[in-house]
């Protein structure tokens, strides 16, 4: 589903991501962990085509993000760490805007908006301006907009930040649903307990370099993920 090969991104004279290799198969929830400034967000932004990278390749379903970014973006969805959405729109207008871009039919979008807005308890607020939303509500709206075109691969940067426990639980369910339908999830998190419980595979990044990756068992063995992570950080 997603192949990141020898990804390198340089800012000035600093390598933010250094020769990173990650492969994600259909049906996998792949966690991406690392300390602040390790290169997680840079990697995720490169995958979704927001950032241009210096070396390497990224393929989604065999299509290169470098060669055909629009085709890749049609298959994926992205939820950023800080949901800066269009404050001048209402929630429903924003969802319709995203649905229009992906060419989602009127019938499908009506059903999907109703379904996901109900799950997150956001239906009544969809007519309000996004500028009046709390951080959590914006996060919920960003999540709904990501699911509205039934993407194959969802890239999420710290998706649980700002969500209430019910919404966080719903999101986990939705992530599992995507994977059971043959899709995949690649997300970064600092909440190691969540990663440990939710992910099939995990990658740990430090100073731009991948230092450990594989199935949860391969990475942590008998220890907790937190213990492994802290050992590697020392």
């Amino acid at each position, binding site marked *: 589903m997603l192949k990141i090969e020898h990804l390198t991104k340089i800012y000035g004279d600093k390598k933010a991501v250094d020769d990173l290799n990650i492969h994600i198969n259909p049906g996998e929830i792949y966690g991406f962990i690392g300390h602040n400034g390790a290169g997680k967000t840079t990697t995720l932004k490169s995958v979704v085509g*927001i950032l241009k990278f210096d070396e390497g390749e990224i393929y989604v379903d065999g299509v290169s993000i470098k060669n055909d970014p629009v085709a890749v*973006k049609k298959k994926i969805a992205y939820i950023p760490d800080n949901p*800066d959405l269009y404050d001048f729109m209402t929630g429903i207008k924003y969802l*319709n805007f995203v649905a*229009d*871009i992906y060419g989602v039919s009127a019938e499908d*979008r009506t059903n999907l908006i109703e379904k996901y807005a109900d799950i997150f308890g956001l239906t009544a607020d969809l007519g309000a301006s996004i500028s009046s939303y709390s951080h959590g509500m914006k996060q919920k709206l960003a999540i709904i907009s990501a699911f509205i075109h039934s993407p194959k691969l969802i890239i999420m940067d710290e998706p649980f930040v700002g969500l209430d426990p019910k919404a966080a639980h719903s999101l986990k369910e939705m992530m599992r649903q995507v994977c059971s339908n043959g899709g995949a999830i690649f997300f970064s998190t600092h909440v190691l307990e969540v990663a440990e419980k939710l992910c099939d595979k995990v990658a740990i990044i430090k100073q731009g370099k991948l230092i450990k990756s594989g199935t949860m068992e391969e990475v942590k063995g008998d220890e907790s993920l937190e213990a492994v992570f802290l050992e590697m950080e020392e």
Partner: protein
Amino acid sequence: MIKALLKKQFAEIFKSYFVNQKTGKARSKGATIGLFVLFAFLMFFLGFVFFGMGMMLSEFLKMPGFEWLYFALMGIVAIFFGLFGSVFNTYASLYIAKDNDLLLSMPIPVKYLLISRLTSVVGLSLLYTSSVLIPATVVYLIIGRLSVLALIFQIILVFAVSLFVSVLSCLLGFVVAVISSKLKNKSFITVIISVVFIGVYYFFCFRMSDIIKSIFLNSDSVVKGIKVWGNLFYLIGMASMGKVVPMIVFTAITIIAFILCFIVLSKTFIGISTFNKGEKKTVYKATTEKQSTLESALIKKEFKRFTSSATYMLNCGLGVIIMPVIAVIAIIKRSTILEILGQIKTETPGFYKIIPIVIIVAVSLMTSMSSISVPSISLEGKNLWIYKSLPIEPSKILNAKIKLHIYITAVPVILTSIILGFSAGLDFSIIILMSVFLYIYVYFGGTLGLILGLVKPNLNWVTETTPIKQSMPIFLNMIIGFAVPAVIMLVGYFTIELIGLEVFISAIIVVFALATRLLGNWVKTKGVEIFENL
């Protein structure tokens, strides 16, 4: 504690003089001094305008028993000018200050917070009122019969009137806060109110001498009116003449009003500082959604961005508002225009021939006041990730921004050129050629504006005013917007005799169509590359 709060308040006000808002870096000493000199020059210019007004009203200073009327009238101007200038600042610093929550969470007594906030309110009122009252005193020193007591009272009155304006600003600021929290289409209403203000301002500017003449002609009824319903202005007028009782009464009224205002505000500050958070909730009811094409969705988004901001509409779309007004005036005054043109035809036939070029240049200049595409890239700001993560060809995004400029600007431009051409009695074929050129000019302006915005983007702004009003692309667009029509005028003036009007307009149509095509190609290639790397 008050010292720390005042330091913070003044640092906030003067931040832009010491720190570059775009880069966040400290300005050089030279740049800071330059900005202060510029500010001083602007204040001097403003004072000079009111000095001129004072000179016009100074006839009253020469009329025994009417001197007070001069000061009363200048007092009215000072109060209204101060109020107009400081009410939105008061609203912003009292009711929607971003650090209200932070400061209220600290162990700071509310009255200290209020003192620091009101200091900036009073300071700004002082700035505005003094720019009217000091020139008024200068005029008095030149023309009036000097009295030391009157001079001392006039100096005290600068502060007293500022305090009075501050009280009114606090009250009106509260009204603005209430209205802002209740209205749905705030930006449109702000635009309408601003346009009305601009209209009234220009109406008074153009008719200033008529108004002053009418005051002189009806001075008896003006005196009667001020004494009845404007007793405060009467007090200002009399106090300015060195009368002790009116001075004491006005100062006492002002101080009592300010103390009352302070008490009320300190009792209700927490409530009103969180006032704007009580917006009426719009409950959404699920309905069948409609699908739009990608192009239509992009245009709708850009349109919504434009109409959501009064600052954007007023600063980048003023030409669109002005043009229909000019067109309506042209229809109403058609007979006068034809009469003037008839005179020009007889007296200066050479100039008469270039009337269509004059119209083209005039409408082009008004078109330059529409700069919708210029800040549109920078205005994406922190939202840029949305466009970049969605499956849209960058060229379509850029095209949507140009198209919005054209859709909003082209219709008033073409209508205005047709109406002006009709009012000037031009041939139909010339009107058509003019309209074709102006449409292409709108296209040219929109594309060039987008390029300027792409080449010098500013995505890290704190307030949207920065890319809309204070950016290099806007400045360059303004310069080009004046330079291009000037070149058209010059070239037209010297070549029409040789090649004829139709050929000249056809030639500039071809030149600008080619230039627009070249700019369009640049947007599709280099422009897309720049956008992808933002």
